[in-house]
């Protein structure tokens, strides 16, 4: 218990670092003046307009140190203090179009998850299955062609999977809509194509990764013992190797689990799914810095939660590991 507590405490300096880095990027490299000028149009901007813009957003305070204030307010009445505090309280403020970023994120989480979770689960199951088949038939032509196929699949850009998939399934065969999204049960029709493409585009690198894990386990002594006992290859693979390989598999999988909330940038924007991924892309294209900054912070928080979950999951799968 104290271990978990210490880990959570350890997360704070990291979040502080992330916060400092984003602050540096968004407020120091380009001062609020620069941003105001860009938002309001490059030329013909009066000083008044810039000052108004800054005041509206509360950006009119000094960046790091307030000379005009007294006592501790010299530190607290600054942009860095106030903006950081807001992030840590998960108050993301308003986007440039006046909508609340916090509420937008809540609304868009659902669609993101409805794509990301199926891709994650089906993807892992497919990849492990293929990797096991390849290891089972190792040193045959079946494996060789499998290895070649994974390299080929890996060499295709993710964009082409989406463009090709949309073209084949949506346009030529008219099976499912190309893009769009509705809530509820009807969303199934819209989800199936992105999920299928997401799974297929991950097969190349995924299968290779799991195959190396399995091969590593196959070389260990307990496998030799199991074979010496006369167990069938099938039993060795599924009962012994698969179970032991769960440890490295979990490490890879649990870390990304919280990040599923963030959705996938490319898939969501291609298929017109109103999730967090397309939210981020829209923000980038509209140069809405408040949203991008909020998403960076949110991503970092989720990643740290992922690291924490990984540590905890070790104890569940591997009884030898003790938290200390």
């Amino acid at each position, binding site marked *: 218990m104290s271990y978990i507590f210490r880990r959570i405490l350890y997360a704070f300096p990291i979040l502080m670092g992330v916060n400092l880095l984003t602050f540096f990027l968004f407020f120091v490299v380009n001062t609020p003046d620069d941003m105001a000028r860009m938002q309001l149009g490059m030329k013909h901007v009066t000083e008044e307009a810039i000052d108004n813009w800054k005041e509206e957003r509360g950006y009119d305070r000094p960046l790091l140190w307030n000379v005009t204030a007294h006592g501790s307010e010299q530190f607290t009445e600054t942009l860095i203090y106030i903006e950081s505090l807001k992030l840590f309280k998960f108050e993301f403020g308003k986007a440039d179009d006046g909508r609340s970023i916090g509420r937008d994120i809540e609304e868009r989480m659902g669609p993101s998850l409805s794509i990301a979770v199926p891709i994650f689960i089906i993807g892992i199951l497919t990849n492990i299955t293929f990797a096991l088949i390849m290891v089972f038939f190792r040193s045959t032509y079946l494996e060789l062609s499998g290895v070649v196929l994974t*390299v080929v699949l890996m060499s295709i850009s993710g964009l082409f999977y989406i463009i090709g998939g949309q073209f084949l399934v949506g346009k030529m065969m008219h099976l499912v809509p190309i893009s769009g999204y509705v809530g509820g049960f009807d969303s199934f029709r819209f989800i199936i194509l992105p999920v299928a493409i997401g799974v297929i585009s991950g097969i190349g690198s995924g299968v290779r990764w799991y195959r190396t894990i399995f091969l590593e386990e196959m070389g260990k002594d307990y496998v030799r013992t199991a074979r010496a006992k006369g167990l069938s290859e099938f039993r060795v693979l599924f009962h012994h190797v698969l179970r032991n390989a769960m440890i490295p598999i979990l490490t890879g999988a649990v870390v990304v689990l919280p990040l599923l909330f963030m959705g996938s940038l490319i898939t969501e924007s291609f298929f017109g799914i109103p999730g967090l991924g397309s939210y981020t892309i829209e923000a980038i294209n509209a140069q809405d810095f408040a949203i991008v900054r909020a998403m960076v912070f949110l991503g970092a928080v989720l990643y740290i939660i992922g690291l924490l979950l990984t540590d905890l999951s070790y104890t569940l799968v591997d009884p030898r590991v003790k938290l200390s």
Partner: protein
Amino acid sequence: MVDSIYALIGAKPLFLWTDILIWFLVAVIFFGVSYTRRRPHLLQPWRRVSKSRLAMWSLAVLMVYVVIGLLDSIHFRYSLEESSVQKEVHYSVEAHTLLDLLLSDIRDSGEKSYSSPMAKNLFVQESIEREDGSVGRDYPLLQSAESHLLGTDKVGQDVLYQSLKSVRTGLVIGTLTTLIMLPFAVLLGIMAGYYRGWIDDMVQYTYTTLNSIPGVLLIAAAILMIQVYIDNNASLFETTEERADLRLLFLCIILGVTSWTGLCRLLRGETLKLREMDYISAAHAFGVSNLRIITRHILPNVMHVVLISVVLDFSGLVLAEAVLSYVGVGVDPTMYSWGNMINGARLEMAREPVVWWTLLASFLFMFTMVLAANLFSDVVREAFDPRLQSRGDK
């Protein structure tokens, strides 16, 4: 003196940042090759690589790309027609490269719009005047019929030319990113593993923090900021190439920032293992300084880790460029790149009839390079990884 030579040739060289770095890299590789050739123990793993026919074929394919990329890395600006009023020579705001000279045929054959590969006529109808004087809608003849091997795009530019020009962008991102991040990763990784203590804590803290920010978002944030800087200081750049080049360089730097953490962690682990070795203890006992132990005993023994990760990263970075350009935080929109080509052409699949050649061309060029790089890196990894070696011997 130099100016008069430029005036004589009618062109002035333009040194872009990425050009300088690319040629610096070529020099480093050249030096590395001649260094390795004299040392048989370093040459041995490369012998294993050269025995693989697959690796040699992939290397040949990669070399073709490299030659195209290098030809495209010598920029110059033509001088404009001298006006009688001014004595001063002005240079074109558009930069050309040696590759442009070679490809001037397909570069300058300006068509009006789409034309399919090797077509005689334009792909879209236009109202033209027939021989008998009547006006009707028809497919007009191309300026240079049957000369566009891969067709032309929306504004009539040759697709093959675009694909070839994109080679340089892909290579720059794949190689310079690694070149930029390598010193940091090697220095910090080895120092963390060797000195441990607070240095280790600092390095670990740094890479955990950087890792915890989703890569695409960090790149997006940094590129947006650079774009604001470039837009606010537009007068600094004489040519569009220079502006695009600065953005490309920063893209490499920021990609390097997000990708050095993996190598750094590997090196730290490897150094932690090495420092407990007997020969390091012996060096300590002999009173060899820390710096010397690191450079003479640790660095050469972790070089295989560095090499493997450099080769493995290459293809991933080339693929990342396409995705980033799609998101809008990749290379400058005016720069030729496969990502920009895909981005510009992705809506063409929805046209009726389908315009498929731009996508096909960028797909083929990118796929060939990445596949060759992947195959080559697999062989290199097998040849250099001592763990895989022992497995093979069993």
